[in-house]
């Protein structure tokens, strides 16, 4: 090709500028659409939204006869098994609503042509992700609320009354859900097809739950497994949630005999930044020219 062709003035056909602020406006519009689609998917509602409630119910029922946790020497006091596992279920819910939900959702949209179509439309990438993040927030807040209501009403679990506990809960929740959502976006790049998405994502999420003190008491795990789990955010999120929902005396049962909220924040922040960088690097509307 000659220089001449390259330098030829471009054709003055019009590409008019778009209206201002549409990235945010369309992002908000996407949230409604995404939430609607989320609740229309039966498997999503069951395996992501209701899963922690179902697990809490099973734990409360299954271990109702095995007595309280953290009792005094004479067997008095302590809290119920359900109460002990509630914070873990909340942490697991945050993980499911972010990582499992977005990783499978976006991988599916990649393989079924949704992303290709959106990539050919004037929808800004930022609006797409605003929609996804909004969907995660709305569904996970509803999920946590449902979990707390069921815990209180059905299983008579005492919830904290001190405002500072709820402040801790608020920042843990926010940091946890943002981290979980960006990690979900990053993980969505791994499955090669929509069909393999759940096969890739669910084992990761499930293993994490088992080694992070969600279903098993963390300190019952062998030390090497505790060390592995300590690399990942779920262990820290669950520990932070226990600091909110369990009595102070339970801090002694933690890995280092303390809640370590500073370490919780640092681990979650590192994963949050890592997730952001990985999502930024890996996200494409389509896999170009495979």
């Amino acid at each position, binding site marked *: 090709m000659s220089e001449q062709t390259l330098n030829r003035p471009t054709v003055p056909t019009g590409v*008019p500028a778009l209206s201002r602020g549409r990235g945010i406006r369309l992002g908000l519009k996407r949230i409604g659409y995404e939430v609607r689609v989320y609740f*229309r998917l039966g498997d999503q509602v069951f395996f992501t939204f209701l899963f922690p409630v179902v697990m809490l119910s099973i734990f409360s029922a299954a271990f109702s006869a095995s007595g309280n946790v953290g009792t005094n020497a004479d067997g008095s006091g302590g809290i119920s098994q359900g109460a002990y596992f509630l914070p873990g279920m909340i942490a697991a819910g945050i993980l499911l609503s972010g990582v499992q939900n977005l990783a499978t959702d976006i991988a599916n949209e990649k393989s079924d042509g949704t992303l290709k179509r959106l990539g*050919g439309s004037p929808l800004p990438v930022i609006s797409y992700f605003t929609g996804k993040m909004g969907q995660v927030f709305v569904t996970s807040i509803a999920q946590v609320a449902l979990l707390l209501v069921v815990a209180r009403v059905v299983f008579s679990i005492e919830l904290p009354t001190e405002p500072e506990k709820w402040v801790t809960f608020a920042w843990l929740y926010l940091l946890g859900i943002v981290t979980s959502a960006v990690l979900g976006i990053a993980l969505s790049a791994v499955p090669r097809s929509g069909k393999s998405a759940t096969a890739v994502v669910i084992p990761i999420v499930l293993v994490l739950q088992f080694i992070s003190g969600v279903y098993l008491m963390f300190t019952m795990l062998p030390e090497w497994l505790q060390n592995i789990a300590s690399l990942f955010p779920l262990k820290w999120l669950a520990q932070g949630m226990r600091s909110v929902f369990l009595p102070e005396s339970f801090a002694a049962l933690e890995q280092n005999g303390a809640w370590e909220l500073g370490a919780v924040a640092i681990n979650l922040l590192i994963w949050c930044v890592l997730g952001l960088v990985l999502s930024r690097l890996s996200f494409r509307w389509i896999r170009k*020219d495979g």
Partner: protein
Amino acid sequence: MNQHAPSSDTIVEVENLGKRYGSLVAVDDVSFNICRGETFALLGPNGAGKSTTIEILEGYRDRTSGTVRVLGVDPQKGGVAWKAQLGIVLQSSAEAAQVTVREQVEQFAAYYDHPRDVEEVIAAVGLTEKAKTRIGKLSGGQRRRVDVALGVIGRPQLLFLDEPTTGFDPEARRHFWELIRSLKADGTTILLTTHYLDEAAQLADRVAVIAAGKLVEIGPVDTIGGAEARVPIVRWRDHAGLHEERTLEPAALAARLLDAAAGEPRDLEIVRPSLEDVYLGLVGAADRNPASARTTTGEPAHV
């Protein structure tokens, strides 16, 4: 006549376009222009490079060589403002099984600054009665019509239609043609790929034939293949078997046959080659001799 200089009414310019996947050459030195308001059809067998070409113009694929301008913009650098002027109907439908037709069309309408009316577009693709049905419950042909609705909702300057009527029944195709004609009447420029030659003949102002990645022919529908390819064919049968002769005066030939046979010739037919015949001739010729890329004017295939 210098056809190379694009006028201000040129909306798509493709020059010496090439696309390779490793050692496979998918598109080889293809050049064409599309003018504003024109309906241009890209024809060719499966795997000829039609979809690769159209996806390069849509910005989905990066080219290996050549120059491409769509609305004056290089598709590899096209941003959202550029995309807002395009309507894209891809070869395969996207899923969106959980939303209704109306929800989906409304959603996409919001992405554009001056969309068409949602109900009008749904009516134009014949889905008014299905507006409240979830897309997952529609038939294949109905889903295709949703794709078309999403392609036109943004009032595009340029509409890409990649095999749009696959899976349509004959009546739905007629309705679709009406819709395309009304878009044309509104001034929409259309780039169409299709397997149905009658569709190209019905809709296109110009067609280009791609075979094995090369442009083998380009021109108005009624002239491609050259005058020679359109010479009527007279077929008849006598004691020696089946005869076939191409002549510009088929009636005169038939009259001579009548005289010679002293009676009605057996199995007499006079056939004017359809676009399909011309196309099959071109594609067949390209398969036999890949170097014979020519236009109707006999020049190398550049417009």
